[in-house]
């Protein structure tokens, strides 16, 4: 084997390795990226049923209740961004820091009937913490603007009841807190 062909072999091996890595990455990006959506976005443009998304917002006070399907507990609660609410179904144990009126992120898919089937519910290990995406969404929906002070107190979201939160996207936003 000549020196040239040996060098060629090395270059080809590197190309194959990195090329397949790039191909795998691009392929996985096209099908496995998880987008963050707020409830109003889900209402406006529901994602396909097989697409996993992250749904984030505040848990509507008084909306949490449970059902029991064949000994498996199912938690149901509404998540809102102040414009629209989506009902989330979650089979499992809610995290210790899950509270009504606090921020939450649920990972899962949207059912054809518009409810959300969560495979995972995340509440951060800090009661004052608000996920970046949720804060961003609050700002966009006009609930909170960082220029006018800090994020709304979690307790004020408690006062917001399901009745205040239209299930369909509303034309006017409810009063900001």
């Amino acid at each position, binding site marked *: 084997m000549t020196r040239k062909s040996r060098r060629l072999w090395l270059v080809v091996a590197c190309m194959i390795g990195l090329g397949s890595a790039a191909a*795998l990455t691009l392929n996985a990006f096209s099908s496995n990226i998880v987008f963050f959506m707020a409830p109003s976005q889900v209402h406006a443009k529901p994602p396909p049923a097989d697409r996993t998304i992250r749904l984030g917002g505040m848990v509507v006070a008084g909306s949490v209740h449970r059902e029991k399907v064949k*000994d498996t*507990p199912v938690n149901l609660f509404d998540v809102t961004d102040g414009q629209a609410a989506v009902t989330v179904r979650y089979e499992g*144990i809610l995290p210790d820091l899950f509270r009504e009126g606090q921020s939450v992120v649920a990972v899962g898919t949207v059912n054809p009937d518009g409810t959300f089937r969560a495979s995972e519910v995340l509440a951060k290990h800090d009661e004052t913490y608000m996920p970046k995406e949720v804060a961003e969404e609050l700002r966009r929906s006009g609930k909170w603007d960082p220029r006018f002070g800090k994020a709304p107190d979690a307790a004020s979201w408690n006062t917001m009841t399901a009745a205040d939160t239209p299930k369909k996207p509303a034309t006017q936003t409810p009063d900001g807190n």
Partner: protein
Amino acid sequence: MNPELGNFALALACCMAAGQAILPLIGANRRDARLMALAPALAVGQMLALITSFACLIHAAITNDFSVQNVAANSAVSKPLLYKITGVWGNHEGSVLLWAMILSICGGAVALFGRNLPSALQARVIAVLGGVAAGFELFCLTTSNPFARVWPAPLDGQGMNPLLQDPGLAFHPPILYTGYVGFAVPFAFAIAALIEGRVDAAWGRWVRPWAVAAWCFLTCGIAMGSWWSYYVLGWGGYWFWDPVENASLIPWLTGTALVHSAIVVEKREALKIWTVLLAIGTFSFSLSGTFLVRSGILNSVHAFANDPARGVFILGLLALVIGGSLLLFAIRAPQLTTGGLFAPVSREGLLVLNNILLCSICAVVLTGTMYPPFMSLLFGKTISVGKPFFDATTIPLAIPLMVFMGFGPMVPWKRAQMWPVLRRLWWAACVALVALVLATVRMRDILPVLATATAVWVICSSLADIAERLRLFRQPLAYSWQRARSLPRAVFGAALAHAGVGIVVLGIAGMSQAAHRIVEVHVGQSEMLAGDSWTLTDVHPAEGPNYSALVATIEVRHNGRLITTLHPSKRTFASQHQTTTEVAIHTNLLADIYGVLGDRHGDDANPTYVLRLHYNPLAPWMWLGGLIMAFGGALSLSDRRVRVGAPRRAKTVDVVVVQ
């Protein structure tokens, strides 16, 4: 008094580190033996100063000195002694001090164990370590001083995050940090070689033990971290592809590549520039890993410090260290002599393949980790990538890696024939095929099936490698035993480490078949999972040192025979208003039975409890395999070739005069 002593020791260490960074470098350039001799002395001095400083902080924590802000914020009188000590590194300031101390211990180790190095190389290595240490100690002193006082001192501390109150986490950070920081030594060797403008076989031989040692600690650290998240977080998962976990996996991948490419430098004087780049890259990834954890750029459960001033300082430090070293590399690397090229079918050819595949996996993990933050930074889109992405990208690259891994140790150097190698490995291939068939029958997806077969292949080929070297079953046993005693330990170490990888992958493949159920039951009710009957027999309250708990009793029976009794619990920490779930795990080494107690519902007369039940086949193998890998590395470090027989430099004109 003591905190001031600690603060002074830290400042002293910082000054010594600065001296250590500058003086030996000048000495090595001027060939001044006295200035070079300062290097080991300063390194040891800096190490002792930092150990003193760290001891002072531990003393403050043990004696409940709440006038120290760090202790007040993270400790409490009621905390058990072990967690008072381990709580020292469970927070930002303490962990930076721990990091600096480990770095200084690395410098001290090079000073004490590196006596067979040429003094100019040793001086330069220690100088580079001193420079990095000075940066970190300055960071510690200026932006996150663990000895800062608070006035008036509170009567009791605030206590630490209950999640951290766990024996696994007590020892996880020091070991992981030793792994991260340990790669500073190969990095320093690489920089020293670039300054000298010379990389040869002897350099490869000197740098490899340090890389292997760091690799062992990092392997152990990652395995322990994964084990911690498995039994503390209570989600039944072991690896979440969390950015922080990825930040430890990336240097592990490049570090593994480094450990292998250094062999080629040592044996064949090839891949030299590449090895230097890997050494720089591995430490850069380690540093960025810490940065990502500490800065909160990537938000995750691990980020307990979100302070922009610190982020800017660390970012500057990173830019200086990484940018500076890459600049030096760009300037000096063309002057390094390149090694020979080699045949594709040879040991070095396969080691190159190993490097290509490991770096491809690393690139994929890096892309998956960095893409979401970049997208949100540049385009304002919030996206995330998770397990499906990483599974789809890393496993297809890991499978060929494992296939070649089986051949690697059997193929001779320089020029090899495929046929004799295949002849020795035929039975390993047969066993792997049987495993493939069995797995196809029993498992659902294609990737776990392939993973199982390749894992079995790796384990069997490691065994075949040892059997071949011992002439096992072809010569009398006594002869084999004699050969085993004369065989270098590094050979056993490598075989063990490879078998460890196989065991880890088997564990991961087994976990893909895990079953779980979430049920809501009354006391006395039974549920079936994975052929076992799980009965909740009792739930009662219990008191701990700083928490109150609700403890459940679950009996697990198989065909009526009692296998085990689990006691999962839920703890409520009054001082932090937090609850944590304590998982109960029963293992028979082939499978874990894993129970979690959830919420209590219903009226007080007849309450129901939510339980999460898991059956995790082969779960313990993941951590066992990790430990075996680390043990294999340690075994090869104990090889006498590493300790005695100092390698001599190849003679060139540029030999530095020693004494």
